[in-house]
């Protein structure tokens, strides 16, 4: 019961962060601030969701898997953000008239 409540609260909090990150992605003016919104907010959001789901886990294996998922997502998001930022330094081009 308590675990269910914790799950609702934490995943709810995670969703708020995702929502904020998405708003940032849409509203921020340039690539760099958008990236900032995405990586910061979404990584945190995913962390809360993983934490919330951890209360429903039925064993250490599931817990480890959740932790692994979060860490891999962090690793990938960090790398991709760097690469996107570097790509954004070169001027964009439209390929269709």
């Amino acid at each position, binding site marked *: 019961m308590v675990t269910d409540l914790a799950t609702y609260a934490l995943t709810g909090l995670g969703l708020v962060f995702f929502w904020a990150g998405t708003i940032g992605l849409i509203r921020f003016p340039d690539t760099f601030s958008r990236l900032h919104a995405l990586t910061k907010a979404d990584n945190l959001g995913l962390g809360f969701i993983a934490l919330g789901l951890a209360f429903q886990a039925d064993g250490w294996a599931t817990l480890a898997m959740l932790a692994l998922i979060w860490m*891999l997502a962090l*690793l990938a998001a*960090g790398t991709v953000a*760097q*690469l996107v930022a570097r790509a954004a330094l070169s001027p964009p*081009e*439209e*390929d*269709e*008239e």
Partner: protein
Amino acid sequence: MSLALDLALCGLILCVALGAVVGRGVFRSVIFFITYGLLLAIGWARLGAKDVALAEAAIGAGLTGVLLLTAHGRLRRMSVERAPRVGPNPMAATTGIAVALALGWAWFALPAPTAPDLAAALPLTGMGNPVTGVLLHFRAWDTLLESIVLLAALLGVWMLARDVDWHAPLGLRYHARPGGVLASFGRLLPPIGLSFGSYLVWAGADGTGGAFQGGTVLAAVVLVAMMAGVLPPPRVAQGGLRAALVVGPGVFLLSGLLAVALGMGFLTLPPAVAKPATLIIEVALTVSIAVTLAVLVIGPPDDKEPVR
């Protein structure tokens, strides 16, 4: 509740698909397509088809996405002519709607047939996962041909190299700074990816996974390692590369021929050895799939982009 979820998911899938078709700019179109593949994978999970979900996410969204993104980047650097922007096309719209309506009608008109009875035959294959049983036993001939289709595509891609480049390393040169983020990612990912990919192959016998899904994960590892400069891109002439390309279909085909030589039918695996034999075939297939997919994505031998 679950119907509402499915409706929302399908609505989302259709929206991003629409974005992929009519969105402004090819880059956006590609991004929509990748999103589409990931959403579709969730749809497959909702349909209870976990193996398909994995395949769609890894191959449909992941590799096809990388392929399209790389191609778009290369086209942009080549200063090609721009494609004309076209307005709505009523003829095409009518055709598309007609086919969609015909398929929709067929859904309601078709009776649900009796599916082939897998349950009785599956124990003979030693597989717990019926999808793997179908892929490697009941429809092994499809799967063998499919692994060779990948090779045919690769040969086709190689034939697109310029003659002067033929002996050059495969694909474009990527410049990853030695101490940069990409380089460290390229060193960090392979051990994780290798274990995950191998796990998928191993698990595929009884649970979710299989040679194609595992092979795709391994291909992604190889790709990242090459882009990060950790793994030098191979050349067409390298014997190791070419052996890796054919080992999967080769072992599969030879096992089928061995069965003929032993007086059984083509591609027959007797129940006694079915499980270990399948595992050997799957491991060999995984190696070939991983290497073939990776070199398929990095493209033909290429010395440098031309200056136009």
